[in-house]
């Protein structure tokens, strides 16, 4: 317990110091939501349009913002004034920053529970990987989001499931989905697992009883969240706000997923076909803009719609679902759920890089399982951190922070590999154990990260100046996409191979 508290406090110090750092528009988004929930009645929450930052999280998160707005109003009433768009005084900055720090207590609980069964060194490794995750710190405390809060709930749910407490785990997951619907991607896994593990094998009536019990629990959560809106007849509006499919296939800065390759393939094919004389039109729509009627941003390859991407996600998950159906063992739950989020990332519609946290953080728990897992996690986490760069619009001041966080994180992970997994106790082993963990190809890939960073940060501005400004980003996205797709296949292999 003392361990856990210490880790959390050390992280909290760093986070508090990050208070004056760069903030993105997400900061104003959350401030606006504080104002919204505080000043308007529930019936207006999903209808109000006084700011472009409409409420696009489900109701439980809105309730959370509402609770938060109470102390906010005490600290500084101007925070919750709905007309006060873009308010950036010290009071609001400090208040919101501190609120994220405290919300991370959820992460503390989640990490504590999920690592409970591990032995000393491994437990501390997991704490370090989760509580000190550089990617999470940067997204939550610089860019500004509440991922720590939500990921804590996810970890809690996973911990409950691995301990066999299915009902509570299901409840936690329901709460999670009703707080951020993006987490619902893992719902098929949960559904199949709970069906096979909780609701079967005890005779038809007991099974049915349990099924109903679980259904009731989920139903209650849903009722609490959506009930008021159902009452006001606003369900359609709520869904409309929650699922803004008007956006394009890719976020403005491409997330490193499968669609990157699809787009590049399309461009290549268009280029070559044109060379060989085939009439290929250059499409008017763009990847990041919305769907314009039936026109597709793809020149050659078939158009992709949200439905298509959903189907692909499910198809991607299916081998895992089959495995879950056949052998619903609690100890693999974390891997399955991480895999589900990975599929969602790889094939999803309008995916943000930040969604990578949904599977990177649970995989941190897996990292303690074996050397190979730890090595894979290290590759993934490093690549993930690389992503959180220009897209999140860092100032030059924040870059050293990111670099230092990465270095410290790497040192901690790499230096613990040897003693935790091979029992050897010498520092000369760090390079060899790292190579063993990551594999020679992995070492090259890591070197590639360094090269991409050097290009993006140093050489590109030096050599090309302002030309081709999208190139570094594209480079980062593509390079990381390789890694992400590899991680996806690797995870699937591990899942299928596991007994």
């Amino acid at each position: 317990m003392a361990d856990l508290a210490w880790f959390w406090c050390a992280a909290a110090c760093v986070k508090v110091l990050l208070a004056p750092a760069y903030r993105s528009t997400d900061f104003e988004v959350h401030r606006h939501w504080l104002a919204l929930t505080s000043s308007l009645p529930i019936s207006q929450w999903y209808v109000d349009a006084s700011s472009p930052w409409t409420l696009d999280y489900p109701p439980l998160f809105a309730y959370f913002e509402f609770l938060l707005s109470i102390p906010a109003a005490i600290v500084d009433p101007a925070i919750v004034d709905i007309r006060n768009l873009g308010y950036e005084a010290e009071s609001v900055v400090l208040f919101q920053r501190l609120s994220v720090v405290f919300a991370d207590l959820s992460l503390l609980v989640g990490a504590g529970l999920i690592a409970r069964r591990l032995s000393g060194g491994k437990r501390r490794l997991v704490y370090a990987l989760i509580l000190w995750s550089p990617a999470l710190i940067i997204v939550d405390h610089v860019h500004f989001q509440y991922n720590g809060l939500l990921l804590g709930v996810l970890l809690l749910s996973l911990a409950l499931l691995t301990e066999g407490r299915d009902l509570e785990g299901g409840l936690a997951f329901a709460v999670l989905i009703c707080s951020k619907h993006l987490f619902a991607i893992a719902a098929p896994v949960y559904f199949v697992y709970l069906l096979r593990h909780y609701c079967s094998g005890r005779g038809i009536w007991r099974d049915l009883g349990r099924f109903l019990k679980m259904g009731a629990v989920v139903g209650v959560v849903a009722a609490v969240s959506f009930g008021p809106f159902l009452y006001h007849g606003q369900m359609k509006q709520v869904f409309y706000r929650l699922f803004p499919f008007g956006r394009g296939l890719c976020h403005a800065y491409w997330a490193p997923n499968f669609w990157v390759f699809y787009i590049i393939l399309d461009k290549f094919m268009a280029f070559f076909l044109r060379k060989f004389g085939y009439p290929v039109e250059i499409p008017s729509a763009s990847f990041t803009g919305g769907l314009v009627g039936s026109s597709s941003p793809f020149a050659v390859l078939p158009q992709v719609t949200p439905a298509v991407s959903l189907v692909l996600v499910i198809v991607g998950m299916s081998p895992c679902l089959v495995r879950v159906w056949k052998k619903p063992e609690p100890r693999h739950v974390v891997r399955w759920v991480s895999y589900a989020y990975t599929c969602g990332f790889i094939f999803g519609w309008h995916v943000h890089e930040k969604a990578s946290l949904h599977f990177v953080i649970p995989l941190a728990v897996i990292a303690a399982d074996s050397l190979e897992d730890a090595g894979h996690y290290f590759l993934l986490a490093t690549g993930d951190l690389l992503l959180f760069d220009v897209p999140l619009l860092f100032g030059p001041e924040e870059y050293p922070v990111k670099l230092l966080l990465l270095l410290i994180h790497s040192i901690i992970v790499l230096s613990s590999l040897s003693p935790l997994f091979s029992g050897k106790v010498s520092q000369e082993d760090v390079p060899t154990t790292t190579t063993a963990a990551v594999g020679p190809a992995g070492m090259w890939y890591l070197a590639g990260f360094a090269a991409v960073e050097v290009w993006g940060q140093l050489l590109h501005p030096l050599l090309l100046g302002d030309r081709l400004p999208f190139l570094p980003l594209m480079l980062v996205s593509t390079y990381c996409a390789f890694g992400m797709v590899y991680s996806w296949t690797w995870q699937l292999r591990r899942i299928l191979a596991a007994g």
Partner: protein
Amino acid sequence: MGRRRKESPTAGEVEEERPPYFFGAASTSMVRILAVSLFALLVRVLVALGPYSGRRRPPMYGDYEWYRNTSSNDLAYWGLDYPPLTAYQSYVHGRLFLQPFVPDSMDGSVVGSSRIFPAALCFVFIYFGRRIRRGRGDGSVTHEWLLAMILLNPCLILIDHGHFQYNCISLGFMIGAVAAILSGRELLGSFLFCLSLNHKQMSAYYAPAFFAHLLGKCLRRHNPILSVMKLAIVVLATFVLMWWPYLYSLDAAREVLSRLAPFERGIYEDYVANFWCSTSTLIKWKMRFTVKSLKLFSLYQVPSNHGFLHALLNSSFSFYLFSYQVHEKSILLPLIPASLLALEEPTAFGWLTYTHSLLSLFGLIYRLPIEVHGRRRPRIPWKLQTVMALSSFSSALLHLVYLIVRPPRRYPFLFEALIMALCFAQFVILAIYSNIRQWTLRDASPGFPSEKKKI
């Protein structure tokens, strides 16, 4: 914190008693040092993200502007009142880093990245000092904590990176000097100390200790005159090197000296937990001059490493408590030997280091819009806990009161004065304690009759 770690050599399991800084096992001390150093650098960079003193308050732009002025050669704006080495260093800094980015603006706009460079620079120097220190040969368990304590010293971090100064360079040299002396390399030690002195004249606080210790050591050698001569040459050479540009005339040298010691300012500034300040509420002192503690005489008799550290502490403490024109930042000076001693006597010095200096700096800190948060506290035995709890509690109470309550109109600086009085009381107690310890150290060794000298 200095307890031995239990290790079981069985595969994969290393249970550690002390706070879980690292998961790796024994000999990864390089790893630990690296991680601690990086973390210290991270903290400094983070503090550098925040505002620095004087950022938006013209015309007193504060120390940051001053450094830029050196490079654009305008001494009139914020007169240079540190010795030559600081001037050279800030000139280099300006040339290398600032001019390419911010050519000649004096409007207080800041190139964020240029504040990171001081962070990195300072860090390098303290680290340098620390590496020499390793020769001391303590158990490896304690040595990273020492590093952590010095590097993560919140006072230093806040002053250097929040308030913006380069104290760490001169302190780094000083630590290097101490380390060199403790491992027996006295010439190197004197050289480094001279560098430190030439960077910030604050280091003169330590001069009596250095002088006494080295003299004592020399006199016990076979050929005392030769040893003294060697040291003297090193010192003189260093000084000549530093002052070279100003030695062309006596006037120039005198001008530099007068800048270094601005006696025109009052005897104290801004509520430092100093003797003069505290008692001024009762008696108004006027032109009292510097008073030194001559208990260093004992050190001269039997120089020992431990005694040296105590001497440093006492010397700097007495200077801090009694001398003329003390700045709050000078509390950094006693802090360093206190940190070094803290591992041997965690009770007294840990208490000092982490609670009160910070409080004493509080007045300074409060003028910066920066948060202060506590660091890890060292373990303290039960007996003293109540006393310390009481004083910590009163400190915390004062903190709170300061923040919340408005002082009565007649005494607008009431709270600063109270804080200062509290700190002063504690410093005095600690100074007395430390002096006693130094004396008892001496008494424990065979030899010379003691001669007490009063202040």
